[in-house]
């Protein structure tokens, strides 16, 4: 039976990885059709030359950096506050934000922003996307940082208080340094989630704030496009590296 299981596992792993591998391979395909005619970097070249793609990538990076910074700080503080004493209201709301379908979050944010803009003269743009991204990343940050806090020795904080440090100083000089790898891991995770987001972004982005996923989506919808293959490969590799580093940081020594 274990041989059968092994064979099955191989097939399952193939199922999980082949689609992306195929995509990666064909991004190096000379022909634009799904017949292999030779190795070529021309699609990558086309991708790099495309002005719209360049701007979209830049937007995505900017948004991801801003949202990561904001959500990591807010999420870490939140995780710490919850660790000191739990709040079912806050934890419950965070869980809810994870479980809410993206489309629901997207339309509700759209409705909220449009309502807000009736009173404050603003439009949808980069800032609304950043705000939205910050929101949905917080729960992930809280999860990662909370996991690390749970395994921390509470008496270390008491020792710091005992030696003359106030609560804030204790957090800064003792707790934060000790949980820092988890905070960094949470940041990388948030970056990945933000960079890749399509659904929510599409609802709250303005005309000047097109992101890379939005461009990819539009191209994919239109039909077969080898440039999309190339971009996709780059995205997957880039984000994959970030996630790999993030999970390494979350390992407990």
């Amino acid at each position: 039976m274990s041989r059968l299981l092994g064979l099955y596992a191989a097939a399952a792993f193939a199922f999980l990885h082949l689609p992306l591998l195929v995509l990666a391979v064909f991004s190096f395909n000379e022909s634009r059709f799904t017949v292999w005619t030779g190795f070529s970097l021309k699609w990558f070249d086309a991708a790099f030359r495309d002005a719209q793609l360049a701007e979209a990538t830049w937007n995505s990076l900017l948004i991801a950096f801003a949202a990561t910074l904001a959500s990591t700080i807010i999420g870490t503080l939140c995780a710490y506050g919850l660790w000191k004493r739990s709040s079912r209201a806050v934890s419950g709301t965070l869980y809810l934000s994870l479980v809410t379908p993206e489309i629901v979050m997207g339309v509700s944010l759209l409705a909220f922003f449009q309502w807000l803009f009736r009173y404050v003269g603003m439009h949808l743009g980069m800032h609304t996307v950043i705000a939205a991204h910050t929101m949905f990343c917080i729960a992930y940050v809280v999860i990662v940082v909370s996991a690390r806090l749970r395994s921390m020795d509470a008496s270390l904080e008491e020792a710091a208080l005992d030696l003359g440090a106030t609560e804030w100083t204790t957090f800064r000089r003792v707790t934060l340094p000790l949980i820092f790898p988890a905070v960094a891991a949470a940041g990388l995770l948030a970056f990945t989630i933000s960079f890749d987001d399509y659904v929510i972004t599409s609802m709250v982005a303005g005309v000047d704030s097109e992101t890379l996923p939005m461009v990819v989506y539009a191209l994919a919808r239109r039909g077969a496009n080898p440039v999309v293959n190339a971009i996709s490969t780059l995205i997957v590799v880039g984000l994959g590296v970030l996630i790999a580093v993030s999970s390494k940081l979350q390992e407990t020594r």
Partner: protein
Amino acid sequence: MDRLRRAFLAPGVVTLSLLFVAPLAIILLYSFQSRGVYGGVAPEFTGDNYSRIADGLYGAIFLRTFVLAGVATVGCLLLGFPLALFISRAGKRRNLYLQLVMLPFWSSFLVRTYAWMVLLRDTGLINTALTGLGLIREPLPLLYNDGAVFVGLVYGYLPFVVLPLYATLERLDKSLTEAAADLGASPWQTLIRVIVPLCAPGFRAAAVLVFIPCLGAYLTPDLLGGGKTVMAGNLIQNQFTTARDWPFGSAVALVLMLLSLVLLVVWMRTQSEDAL
């Protein structure tokens, strides 16, 4: 001391209130109003939107959403359990396999969905390969239908079941399987009569964990189903863009949200510990 703790929670609470709770409150409000003349929102309150959902056309969409999500969940469980079983028996390589399972999941959902378009379309890899091998003459319509959405959902969320199922298998008392073997059960019988029943709670938890995102799926049916497979998520998006009926879209969104909330509560009951 409590003041400080509140200070730590404050930024999170403000962000959640402003960017999560308030938006939901607004669409809750809209869901009880109706579409204005120019596509805006008329101020009178009505329960019409919700009763519309129950009627034929939209009811069918919800039904289809449930069915697709349900079938995808079953598919994930069936495909995921043997994989979880394999990993739990893999000894030293366990963590490596787990990482291999999770890696695609964390890369890019958009790209992973697009990858299936490349595989399934008329000029895609599968059709090209089958035609090239002489097995078919006309390309098979693999894309833009329920089947493609099903494949996309299972592919998208399979890693989501493997982890909890693996955790359940790990927690199993090994001596029970040894006892079964000792009493004469073959590996197959041990699996069916001992392991699977003992994993039942894990199955329930994993099922709910996958069913929720499948229920709220938007991108997968949108890209892989063409315009033909409409799930609740697509309906909502449509109402907020093309159809410009925000109140109705809000009502559908809230129903979907409520379903997800109920399922979340169910899932939390299956857990003995909190993650947050």
